[in-house]
């Protein structure tokens, strides 16, 4: 019962936050210097031409009225029409979102499958020593290498020497699911490098932190084998910071694949949004930012929910039982 009430409260708060974000972004987009009419019609357009274009898209109405109109449609799933492409934003998102989601999911899978085991392994290695130092060096390198540098390098290597994976040709999911994943594999790897390094580092630190806790000493004193201690008593205790990081990375990936999408010519959301911003394509930017905010809020909600389940001391879910 407490769980449901908590979830309802948090969902209501999330919706309110989204509403606030929509107001902010609506205002911010319009406050940017250079309006749609200036940028699309160019410096030579006459005043009356600009006014006609503005009237056509309703840009001459008061901002509040524009907002309410947009909000009414948005609630019904209509995010307006791209001013530049003259296509419905919702349709475009529907085409591009799966691409970005697949890319993100691939990168995340690599992150979780490589980063967490790597962190646990380096964290539980006795003393650390040379292995620990090497691990720290690799993760520092992975975290400080900019994506565009690594991405450019990969693009160069794979196009110059045709190493088996194609670069720059996206295969749609509907055509060939396996080929689609294959065409996104390289960009996902480039995206994952930072995430793997960050996850390995955070996991390692969390594991090291748990290993010095007294309940681990107690388990050692009971004669528990090392593997059992790690499985039963370390992983769960170290999970919360790692979960938080992975959730943040998810949100970051969904919104931050812009450079990689450009570099690898992937028709995802990132490139669409940047183009929209360049052209002051209000509807596109509004929908994109709202989506990013929704993703962040959902991930935070999810992390709070899961953290409360993983570590009972975090009193997010329900109330404490009486001692």
């Amino acid at each position: 019962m407490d769980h449901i009430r908590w979830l309802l409260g948090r969902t209501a708060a999330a919706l309110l936050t989204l509403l606030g974000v929509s107001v902010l972004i609506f205002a911010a987009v319009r406050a940017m210097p250079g309006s749609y009419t200036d940028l699309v019609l160019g410096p030579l357009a006459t005043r009356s031409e600009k006014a006609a274009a503005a009237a056509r898209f309703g840009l001459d109405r008061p901002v509040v009225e524009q907002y309410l109109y947009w909000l009414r449609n948005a609630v019904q799933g209509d995010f307006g029409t791209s001013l530049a492409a003259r296509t419905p934003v919702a349709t475009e998102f529907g085409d591009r979102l799966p691409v970005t989601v697949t890319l993100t999911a691939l990168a995340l899978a690599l992150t979780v499958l490589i980063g967490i085991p790597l962190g646990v392994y380096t964290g539980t290695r006795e003393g650390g020593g040379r292995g620990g130092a090497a691990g720290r060096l690799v993760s520092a390198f992975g975290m400080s290498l900019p994506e565009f540098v690594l991405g450019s390098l990969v693009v160069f290597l794979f196009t110059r020497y045709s190493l088996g994976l194609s670069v720059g040709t996206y295969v749609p999911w509907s055509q060939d699911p396996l080929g689609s994943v294959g065409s996104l594999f390289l960009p996902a790897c480039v995206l994952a490098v930072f995430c793997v390094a960050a996850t390995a580092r955070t996991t390692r630190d969390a594991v090291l932190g748990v290993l010095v806790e007294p309940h681990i000493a107690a388990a050692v004193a009971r004669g528990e084998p090392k593997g059992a201690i790690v499985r039963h008593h370390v992983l769960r205790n170290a999970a919360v910071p790692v979960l938080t990081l992975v959730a943040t990375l998810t949100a970051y990936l969904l919104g931050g694949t812009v450079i990689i999408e450009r570099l690898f010519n992937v028709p995802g959301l990132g490139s669409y949004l940047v183009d929209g911003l360049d052209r002051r394509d209000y509807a596109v930017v509004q929908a994109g930012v709202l989506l990013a905010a929704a993703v962040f809020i959902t991930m935070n909600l999810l992390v709070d929910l899961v953290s409360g389940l993983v570590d009972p001391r975090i009193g997010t879910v329900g109330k404490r039982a009486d001692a």
Partner: protein
Amino acid sequence: MTAETTPLLVIDDVVAEYRTGSRVVRALDGADLTVGRGERVGIVGESGSGKSTLGLLTGRLLPKATAYPRGRVLVDGESVLDLPPDRLARLRRERLAFVPQDPVGALDPTLRIGRQLRLALRDKPTDLVALLERVLIRDPERVLRLYPHEISGGMAQRVIVAMAMARRPALLIADEPTAALDSQVREEVLRLLFTLAAEHGTTVLWLSHDLGGVARWCDRIAVMYGGRVVEDGTTTDVLTAPQHPYTAALSAADPARAKDGTRLLTIGGTPPVLTESTPGCVFCPRCTSADDTCATARPAPRTVEGRTVLCHHPGPGGTPVPVPDGPAPKAAVPDGQEEA
């Protein structure tokens, strides 16, 4: 089965050093202790005297960076410092049990009590409700479903005692098990611990600050100072007629034993932090009856009045501080002892 004639625990001239970088702290400086089966031994001494180190040494649980330049530790005849990891883990699992100072910290905060007990005893199916009832926990079904942060320190310590005693260990090492508890709960936990130990024939090593408690529950007492056992004998002998000046001073400084209205005596100076072996007696700088011999020659164990003493001038005459008069504590037979 090991022959009953071998002592359960032999700590023989052990030197233990914590090494961090270039810093060396010598926590044990030639400690000797032999404990027979079924004995209840209280180890007393100021903080930093090496009590906890001695307790952890028994299971080779000291930090990885600890060096042992000298000495050996035998549990049931097995040399603890030389065992390979798997045999060491087995020794800890089957013969030893530890009860720590902070019971709540010793439980995994993410697991319910029932789950941790099942995990800890997974190779030994146990009726957990009965197990908790043995340690006088009311409503055990409910407690099994709780998380460690939801129970009190006293209850957590009872859970720890239950977990420790479930395997019927040969040797129980309790490091100030009541330090984190309320005074009302202390006596209960001690009674539980010693009663269960008596029932299971478990030998107890109780590291304590509580001289009165040791007098009540232990038949033997070992006084530690500067990483050595400086006096070791029956509780009655040692506490009523200390032969080592440090024992006398410690006993005079025990607030529980001071008479009302009298000034509590303190031991001048602070206990040493050793970095190497001392040339003379470690207590020499704080001892009022020390002479040139004490500063230059290391005292060797000698038998005086039925106990072992590390002092050049043992005896009540050497006592610098008067022992407060009043009824001397007697080693009492704990409840349930007869059943053993």
